[in-house]
């Protein structure tokens, strides 16, 4: 049996790979003929996603069912029977990832229909496709003034909720636009800027550094006339309806649940909410009402790629726990490599990439020219697909006796790992492969590319002669995990890993489990917090696979992914532990807004969390103040607005006659939370927006605020002032960051960076085997924390499922004979993987080391080496080199450019 993943977009792909990589059989069901979903529609995103798609296409544990649809589902968790396009599929659990569709009934009033009014997705394509000036689609004139209208088809009557992702993607588009065309004037019409974390910094930059005009107004109308677009908007400064003439308008179109979701819900019996999204709960964000069926991605709520992928990781783990592992994990089988001998025998394999290369490259001619090169034993240019070419490589190694492979085809970013694997299973050391990118960087980039292709192959053949075996060591994986932090995130991660069958050490610095949530009587949505928390604590403490250490601290972390060691001291413990993976869930802490609105001096002023802790909602006149506290080193929590408005609502509900004010700059009730904002307004909560230049003041009991909509001062005499506060990173982040060598940003942990920039591994870090989640990454809502910590658990389990790991192949090596012990490399290693050590110096007599004569200092490469090669290029004596990128290997190519 296995697991069915429905939807082949970024979420589906992520879930399928996590499962397949840990040895589960996956049926990936996609209604289209190709994988990639919405992301594949954009060149840049497709680029980032393509290596993942290549892995799915070639994964032995994934059965790909393209152009297929789920027709029926029967049975129950552990034993589902699916009918997929007339084929029967038996699985133990199901992951739903059908994704989203964009809002497509754009109102005519936006001038939609005029060629110069484009939806944001189309604009992204235009921007990417533009070479030279950005021109108007209608008349080809250069664009000088452009407007972005947000919330088109969201936060409106037809689609009541906020689409969450639009604010961020609009900011990204504008940033790209301004980087390329700094002279274009950009106007953004918005209601609230709902960006979080790093995107918040981006928007601030756009306003301050790039001079983008952010105009707060819901644009009623765009009128195309006489070659310009007249955009009507509310000019708050002048207090009238104004018109701005623009050359082009981009509509930030909202998201809707996938059109197929309705049928899918019917077939599977999964409940959808009033907006048509799959219903999940705040404490169980991955589970649907049908046990064994899990949901992730934009089918549960509108969200960005990062959150989608995190949920997909998490849903994969949930599904895996119900399933039986049946398949071998690729790369875990025994491998023996042939002796390659001294003389290089090079096999050149040219893949036609399904005709793509042949369009501009005369492959046969290239093959003829390559054939006569020295050391080339074999040239194969007849294969046209990746699978065939890989088969040819395997034949070449086994039957053709070649001991170096030059593989020409698509980009190594997509297929290098897969071809390396093929070489390894055919018995050739995988580092005797040289990849030539004759598709992306040759056939697609030039009109006449035959000579270029030959030139590239010529260089590769030269380099191939100097390639060397790289021996990697295999070491066993310790099937245990360390979780740091006993809050909701840490406990969820620990439970996830334990449920998957591995032992967990849970280390909490305080005396009790519970973390931030333990202090609140209520969840942000008003539900009781104590029950789910108690349930979680009980589950953790009663789980025999989890060892909890309180008042404890981990120190002296050593080792690498799969085999870490650390020392734990705490309540009655002082022991050494070994573990294969680590999850960091340290959470965040609140900033104390000393000095803001007389906080700390006047006891009428409390923080939002103090107010929620006290749980007294009976004030007569109360003012909630948001966005007031802005200072270095703090970050606004994603849940602030939601918590603030639900509190305001509660006051109003308890006492109809109370006067409830909310003073704000941006109300960030993202996604479905938009509903409580609407509710609060309807129930009479008064929202007053102030400007960042004129913040509210509180003196002698009077709160005065300049309201920008009234364009006037408002004075309130509140019984209570409630101040929302930003978050600060946990105190131990600094220490953990240097111990695990993880970079921080504003004190919070950073995920591994991808190129192009997109977050396809939101819980992975630069240090393999160390994962991050919850508010340690970014202070978020509890549902997101739970999803992300399940994701971190999932990623940890993928690693723990392996019996052994290999030491990294591309690392620095020292020639100790030459090393002079100067220590330059030690100083510059970015991960401190190098150290100097005293070594005995052998006296070599007639080629034989006989006695030692004293000692000398030499550099030693430690476990942490990441293979950047900085040391190799700085070493003054040439003793340092980087495997696979040794000087002679690079020089070999340079001679034949």
């Amino acid at each position, binding site marked *: 049996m296995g697991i069915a993943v429905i939807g082949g977009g970024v979420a589906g792909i992520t879930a399928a790979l996590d499962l397949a990589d840990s040895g589960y059989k996956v049926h990936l069901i996609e209604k289209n003929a190709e994988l990639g979903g919405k992301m594949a529609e954009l060149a840049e995103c497709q680029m980032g996603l393509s290596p993942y798609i290549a892995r799915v296409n070639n994964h032995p544990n994934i059965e790909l069912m393209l152009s297929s649809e789920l027709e029926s589902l029967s049975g129950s968790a552990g034993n589902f029977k699916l009918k997929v396009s007339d084929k029967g599929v038996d699985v133990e659990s199901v992951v739903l990832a059908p994704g989203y569709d964009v809002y497509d009934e754009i109102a005519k009033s936006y001038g939609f229909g005029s060629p110069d009014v484009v939806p944001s997705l189309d604009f992204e394509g235009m921007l990417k496709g533009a070479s030279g000036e950005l021109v108007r689609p209608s008349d080809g004139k250069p664009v000088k003034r452009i407007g972005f209208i947000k919330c088109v088809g969201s936060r409106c009557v037809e689609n009541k909720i906020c689409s969450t992702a639009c604010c961020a993607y609009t900011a990204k588009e504008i940033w790209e636009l301004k980087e390329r065309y700094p002279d274009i004037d950009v106007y953004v019409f918005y209601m609230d800027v709902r960006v979080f974390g790093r995107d918040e910094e981006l928007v601030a930059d756009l306003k301050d550094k790039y001079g983008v005009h952010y105009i707060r107004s819901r644009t009623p109308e765009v009128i195309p006339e006489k070659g310009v677009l007249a955009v009507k908007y509310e000019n708050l400064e002048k207090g009238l309806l104004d018109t701005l003439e623009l050359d082009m308008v981009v509509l930030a179109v909202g998201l809707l649940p996938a059109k197929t979701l309705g049928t899918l819900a019917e077939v599977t019996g999964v409940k959808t909410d009033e907006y048509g999204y799959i219903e999940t709960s705040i404490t169980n964000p991955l589970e649907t009402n049908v046990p064994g069926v899990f949901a992730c991605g934009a089918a549960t709520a509108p969200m960005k790629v990062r959150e989608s992928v995190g949920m997909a990781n998490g849903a994969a783990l949930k599904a895996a726990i119900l399933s039986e592992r049946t398949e071998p994990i690729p790369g875990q089988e025994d491998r023996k490599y042939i002796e390659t001998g001294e003389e290089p025998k090079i096999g050149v394999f040219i893949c036609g990439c399904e005709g793509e290369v042949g369009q501009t490259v005369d492959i046969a001619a290239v093959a003829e020219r390559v054939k006569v090169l020295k050391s080339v034993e074999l040239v194969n240019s007849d294969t046209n697909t990746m699978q065939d070419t890989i088969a040819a490589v395997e034949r070449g190694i086994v039957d053709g006796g070649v001991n170096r492979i030059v593989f020409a085809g698509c*980009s190594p970013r997509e297929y290098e790992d897969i071809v390396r694997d093929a070489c390894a299973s055919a018995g050739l050391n995988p580092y005797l492969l040289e990849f030539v990118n004759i598709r992306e960087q040759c056939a697609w980039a*030039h009109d006449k590319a035959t000579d270029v292709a030959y030139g590239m192959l010529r260089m590769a053949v030269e380099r191939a002669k100097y390639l060397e075996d790289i021996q990697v060591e295999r070491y066993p994986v310790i099937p245990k995990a360390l979780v740091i932090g006993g809050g909701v995130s840490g406990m969820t991660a620990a439970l996830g890993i334990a449920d998957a069958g591995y032992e967990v050490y849970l280390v909490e610095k305080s005396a009790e489990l519970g973390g931030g949530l333990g202090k609140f009587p209520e969840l942000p949505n008003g539900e009781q917090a104590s029950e789910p928390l108690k349930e979680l604590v009980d589950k953790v403490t009663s789980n025999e696979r989890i060892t909890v250490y309180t008042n404890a601290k981990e120190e002296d972390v050593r080792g690498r992914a799969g085999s870490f060691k650390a020392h734990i001291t705490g309540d009655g413990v002082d022991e050494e532990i070994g573990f294969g993976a680590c999850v960091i869930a340290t959470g965040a802490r609140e900033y104390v807004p000393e000095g803001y609105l007389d906080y700390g001096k006047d006891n009428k002023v409390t923080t939002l969390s103090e107010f929620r802790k006290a749980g007294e909602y009976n004030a007569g006149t109360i003012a909630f103040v948001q966005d007031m506290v802005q200072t270095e080193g703090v970050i606004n929590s994603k849940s602030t607005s939601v918590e603030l408005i639900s509190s305001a609502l509660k006051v109003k509900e308890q006492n109809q006659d109370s006067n409830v004010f909310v003073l704000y700059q941006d109300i960030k009730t993202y996604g479905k939370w938009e509903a409580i904002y609407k509710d609060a307004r309807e129930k009479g909560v008064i929202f007053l927006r102030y400007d960042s230049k004129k913040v509210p003041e509180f003196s002698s009991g009077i709160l005065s605020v300049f309201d920008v909509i009234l364009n006037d001062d408002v004075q309130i005499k509140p019984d209570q002032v409630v101040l929302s506060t930003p978050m600060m990173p946990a105190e131990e982040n600094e220490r953990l960051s240097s111990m695990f060598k993880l970079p921080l940003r504003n004190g919070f942990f950073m995920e591994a960076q991808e190129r192009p920039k997109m977050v396809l591994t939101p819980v992975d870090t630069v240090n393999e085997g160390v994962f991050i989640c919850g508010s340690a990454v970014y202070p978020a809502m509890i549902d997101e924390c739970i999803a992300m910590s399940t994701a971190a658990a999932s990623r940890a389990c993928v690693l723990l499922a392996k019996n052994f790991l290999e030491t990294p192949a591309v690392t620095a090596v020292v020639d100790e004979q030459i090393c002079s012990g100067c220590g330059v490399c030690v100083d510059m290693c970015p991960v401190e993987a190098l150290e100097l050590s005293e070594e005995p110096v052998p006296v070599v007599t007639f080629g034989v080391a006989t006695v030692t004569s004293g000692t000398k200092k030499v550099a030693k490469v430690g476990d942490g080496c990441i293979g950047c*090669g900085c040391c190799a290029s700085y070493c003054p004596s040439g003793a340092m080199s980087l495997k696979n990128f040794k000087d002679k290997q690079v020089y070999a190519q340079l001679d034949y*450019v």
Partner: protein
Amino acid sequence: MGEEIEGDFEPKIVGFTCNWCTYAAADLAGTSRKKYPPNSRIIRLMCSGRLDPMFVLKVLLNGADGAFFSGCHPGECHYIKGNFFARRRIAAFRTILKQFGLDSRFKSYWISASEGEKFANTMKTLTEDIKEQGPSPLRGKIL
């Protein structure tokens, strides 16, 4: 290298790129079918930090008409700070190149993985620039 120049001068350029940013940008240029002159050959390094100035010197002394280096934007290195090292030493290296009179033939760029367009444009202007400078004085000479 070392062959005679026939007809229009087509410069030979060698580029060193890091695997994570500029190499990916070159891929993106191809994927989005941005055409650029076929004069440059790219040597893939894992990180800009691996760029040994000797590589560049070797290329130029071999008679290449131009050379360039491109990595991740400063502050965005996949290996934390490799591109800062590269930037620092390129600055120092230029003082040497100036003595050879080859300074103008070596360019350095920062092109991130999402800047396919920028990569293609850079290749265009680079090729134009080198064409204008004419063949390398070291072309065809054995040093």
